[in-house]
C-alpha cells in the first residue's frame, strides 16, 4: 500500500514558495545591509563579511590575515584578552571571527536586552583591536602548531598539494595559515597592517536576522562599522588555473588513500551557473543519491562517501571532488570517477534524472530559510555573489525553466574528463602512470 501513496504525494509536492521578506537597509552613514526582521526570539544574528580575506596577504607575509583575525578577540580598547572575553561572556554574546581565501567573516549573536553593550565591545574588537604582543605570540603558538600538525595530516597534505597544483604562485595556491617560516616572521606591524588592509568599509557585506527594526539596525551599523577606514587593500589578480591532467601520488603510511580530484570550474556570475549546479547535483553533489555515490558506494562498496562541488571564488573557479578508499581500491575508484565524468560529459542527464534533480532542488530551497543564524548567513552570501532579494522568489522558476538541452550542453562544457587531475595521499595500488611526489 505504501508505494502508490508515495508516488501520489511526490507528484503533489509542487515546490513550496520561499516566503522570506528581506528589507534592504541603508544606515544614516551609508552602510548597507539586508534585514530579515523577526521578533519571535529576543536575539539578533549578525553576519558580516569583509571581502578580500587571506588573498590580501602581501608577498612574504602569508598567514598575516589569518593571525590578525584570530587575534581580534584577544583584547580591544582598554580591555586585555581576559577582560575582553569576560565582557563578552557577561553579556552572553557570541562572536566568531574567521578568515578564508575571499573574506574575513564575523558571525555574532546578541541578546536584545543587552544589545547596546554587545555592539560596543564588538565595535572595539573590529575598530580598536589592541594586538598586544603577548596575545599575538600566544595565538601564533597555536597557529604554528596547526601548521606543523598539518604536515602529518593526510587530508591537509592532499588539500595543500591540490591547491599548489591548481594555483601556483597565487595566494589561493598555499594554506591560509601561512608557513612555519612566514608566520614565525610576522611582526606586530604586519598584523596592524593586515587589519588596515582587510577590515574596511569598501567591501563589507552585512546580513541581519531577528529581533531588531530597520531603524535600530541602521543606527547599529553606524555605531559598529562607521569608524572603519573607507578603503582596504586592493585585491590580487585573478588566478590562472594550472592543473595538469593525471595522478599525483604522495606516499603516506595510512590504510586508506585520500583522493582529491577536479579541474577548472565555472564562475558564480556565469549565465550557466545554475545549469552547472544541476549537473553537479546529478553527478556528485550532496543532498540526493548522486551518480558517483551510486557507483562507488552503493554498487561497489568502495567508499563511505564521495562528493563533488562547484567551488567558485572571487579570483578563480574549481570543480572539485573527494573521497577516501582502502589503498588496494584506489586504482579502481579513479577509473570509476573517470568513467562517470566521461559518461555525463558525453550523454548528459536523462530526462527523468533532470526531473528528479529539479524536484530535489526546488523542494529543498525553501527549507534553507530557517532560523536567524541561517538567514543572516544566507543574506550575506547572496549579496556577495551579486544576487538581489528578488532572487529568493524567482529561483525555483529559474531551475524549473532549465531545459534538458541547456543542461546537457553545460554538462559537456563543464565536465572535462580529459582534464581531470587527481592527488592521492596514501599507499594507493593499481594506478597507472602516477606521478610520485
Amino acid at each position, binding site marked *: *500500500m505504501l508505494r502508490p501513496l508515495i508516488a501520489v504525494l*511526490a507528484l503533489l509536492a509542487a515546490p513550496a514558495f520561499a516566503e522570506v521578506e528581506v528589507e534592504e537597509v541603508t544606515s544614516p552613514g551609508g552602510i548597507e545591509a539586508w534585514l530579515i526582521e523577526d521578533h519571535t526570539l529576543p536575539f539578533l544574528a549578525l553576519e558580516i563579511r569583509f571581502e578580500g580575506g587571506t588573498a590580501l596577504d602581501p608577498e612574504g607575509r602569508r598567514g598575516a590575515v589569518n593571525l590578525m583575525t584570530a587575534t581580534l578577540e584577544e583584547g580591544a580598547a582598554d580591555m586585555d584578552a581576559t577582560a575582553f572575553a569576560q565582557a563578552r561572556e557577561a553579556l552572553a554574546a557570541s562572536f566568531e571571527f574567521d578568515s578564508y581565501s575571499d573574506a574575513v567573516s564575523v558571525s555574532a549573536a546578541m541578546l536584545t*536586552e543587552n544589545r547596546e553593550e554587545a555592539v560596543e565591545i564588538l565595535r572595539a574588537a573590529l575598530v580598536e583591536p589592541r594586538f598586544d604582543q603577548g596575545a599575538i605570540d600566544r*595565538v601564533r603558538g*597555536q597557529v604554528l602548531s596547526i601548521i606543523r600538525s598539518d604536515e602529518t595530516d593526510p587530508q591537509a597534505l592532499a588539500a595543500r598539494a591540490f591547491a599548489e597544483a591548481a594555483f601556483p604562485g597565487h595566494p589561493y595556491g598555499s594554506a591560509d595559515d601561512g608557513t612555519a617560516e612566514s608566520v614565525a616572521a610576522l611582526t606586530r606591524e604586519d598584523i596592524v597592517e593586515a587589519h588596515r588592509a582587510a577590515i574596511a568599509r569598501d567591501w563589507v557585506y552585512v546580513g541581519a536576522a531577528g529581533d531588531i527594526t530597520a531603524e535600530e539596525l541602521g543606527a547599529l551599523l553606524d555605531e559598529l562599522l562607521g569608524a572603519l577606514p573607507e578603503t582596504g587593500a586592493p585585491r590580487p589578480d585573478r588566478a590562472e588555473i594550472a592543473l595538469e591532467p593525471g595522478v599525483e601520488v604522495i606516499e603516506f603510511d595510512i590504510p*586508506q588513500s585520500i583522493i582529491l580530484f577536479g579541474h577548472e570550474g565555472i564562475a558564480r556570475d556565469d549565465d550557466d551557473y545554475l545549469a552547472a549546479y544541476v549537473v553537479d547535483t546529478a553527478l556528485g553533489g550532496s543532498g540526493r543519491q548522486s551518480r558517483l555515490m551510486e557507483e562507488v558506494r552503493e554498487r561497489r562498496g568502495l*567508499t563511505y562517501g564521495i562528493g563533488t562541488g562547484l567551488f567558485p571564488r572571487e579570483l578563480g573557479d574549481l570543480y572539485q571532488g573527494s573521497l577516501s578508499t*582502502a589503498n588496494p581500491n584506489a586504482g579502481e575508484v579513479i577509473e570509476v570517477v573517470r568513467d562517470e565524468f566521461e559518461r555525463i560529459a558525453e550523454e548528459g542527464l536523462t530526462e527523468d534524472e533532470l526531473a528528479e534533480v529539479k524536484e530535489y532542488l526546488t523542494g529543498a530551497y525553501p527549507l534553507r530559510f530557517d532560523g536567524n543564524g541561517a538567514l543572516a548567513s544566507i543574506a550575506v552570501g547572496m549579496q556577495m555573489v551579486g544576487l538581489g532579494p528578488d532572487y529568493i522568489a524567482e529561483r525555483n522558476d529559474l531551475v524549473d525553466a532549465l531545459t534538458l538541452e541547456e543542461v546537457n550542453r553545460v554538462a559537456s562544457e563543464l565536465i572535462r574528463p580529459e582534464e581531470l587531475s587527481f592527488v592521492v595521499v596514501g599507499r594507493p595500488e593499481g594506478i597507472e602512470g602516477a606521478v610520485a611526489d
Partner: protein
Amino acid sequence: MRRLIAALALALPMPALADEAVTSFALDNGLEVVVIEDHRAPAAVHMLWYRAGSADEPPGRSGIAHYLEHLLFKATDELEAGEFSDTVAALGGTDNAFTSYDYTAYFQRVAAEHLGLMMEMEADRMTDLALDAEDILTERDVVIEERRQRTDNDPGALFSEQRRAAQYLNHPYGVPVIGWAQEADALTLDDALEFYGAHYAPNNAVLVVAGDVFPGEVRDLAEEHYGPIPADPAIAPRERPQEPPQLAERRIAFEDPRVGQPYVVRTYLAPERDAGDQREAAALTLAAALLGGSAQTAVLPQKLQFENEDALYATAFYDGLSYDDTLFGVLVVPAPGVTLEEGEEALDRALAEFLEEGVDEDQLERVKFQFEAARIYAQDDPGSRARTYGAALTSGLTVRDVQDWPGIIQSITPEEIEDALARVLDRDRAVTGYLTTTEPAAFEPVPASAADPAAGAPPPPPAGLPAEPAGDAATVLEDS
C-alpha cells in the same frame, strides 16, 4: 575591570524566556512522543530514536547496532533499497541517521506537510526490513571503509579508542561504536536481524517532531502510522555489566609516526545525569565550564596559558547525557619545550590550586548567565532541540528532567561544584593517556578543544583548532 563586568552581569535580569512549546504524550503501544513547536519556517524535523546503541550489543558482535542502522536504508517489504532516501530527496528533504553507545536515531527534515509520509515510511522499517544477502555484504564494505576513514586513518581516534578500552574494563562503553575491526568485518545478516528483532519496537522508541507542527496533528498521524505496531513484551530495561571498583591508576602511552600533536588527556569515571537526580551532574557540568569553557577566561587556560606559558591549549570536558557512568576529562597541549610529563604536572597543579582556591563567584555568575542565554539561542534551531530531547529520553531521562535541567544549573552552589569535582578528581579512577610521535620532538602539538554544544554557550576553540574533544571523538557516528 573584572569586578565591574561581574557587577554588570549581576545587575542584568535573566532573559525572559519564550514558551518552549514542548508537548509530550505516549501511544498505547508504549511509543513516547515529544512535539516541539516552532512556526517560523514551514519545515519539520521527524526523528525516531531507539533505546538501543552499541552498549546493547551482544559480546563479540561489536558494530552491529551501527551496521543495522546502515541496513535500515535498504529494502523493506514495501520499499526498495534506497527508496526511502530517494523519496525524501524528491520532496527536497534531507534524511540520515546516527548511532551512539545508548541510542540509534533516524531523522528527516522536510516541508511540514510531508510529516505523515515520513511516519509511514519510518514505521514501515521499524518492523518490515527485507534484506537482500548481496546488499548487506556491499554495505558491510562501506562500514569497513567508514571505520578506516574515522579511526584507522587517524592516530588521535585510535588513541581515543585505546583509552576508552582501558577505562571501561567490564562495561560495553569500552567497545567502540563502530566496532572492533575484526568483529565488524565478520558481522552477518543473522546478527543484524537478531539485534533488529530484539530492540526495534514502539515501546523501545522515542518519536521527536520539531518545527511547524501542532501536537494534535502529530498525535493523529502517530496513532495512524505507529499506533498499529504492537509493543514487544520482551523489551526490558537495559541492564549492562557495570564497572568493578577501580583500584589503581591506569596509564596509556600511544605512539604513532603520524602524530603531529603530542598531548595529554586524562578522563575520570564520573556520574551521569539520572532521572530525578541531576544535581551532581549539573555541578560537574559547571565545573567543566569553569575549568575549560572559555579559551580566555576559564581556569585551565588562565593558569596554564596566561599566568604561565606551560601550554598552548588546556581545557576540560564533561557530558552528563549517558545511560551509565560517564567521563570527566582534562586535556593539555604542552607549549614547545615543555614535555608531556611537565605538562601533566602543571595540569595537576592547576587542578589542585582550583580546588584549594575555590570557585570564583564572578566567573560562576557569567557562566550561569551564558547557560541561561543558551536556552534562547538554542530555540533558533528546532533540529538541535529535537536532538536534546531524543538523546535525553534514550539516556534514562524524562521530559521533566530535560525541563528541570536549566533551573538546576542555576541553583548549583560553589560548594556543590567543589565537592563534586573533588570526588571525581581521583587518579585511581582515571586513565591518563600520552599521545606522541615516534620521532621525538619532530613536531609541535596541536590542541583539541572540549566544548559541549548542548551545555551552555561553549566558546569556539581558538582559530582553526579542532572543535571535538579529543577524548570523545567517536561517541556519535553521524552517518551520511
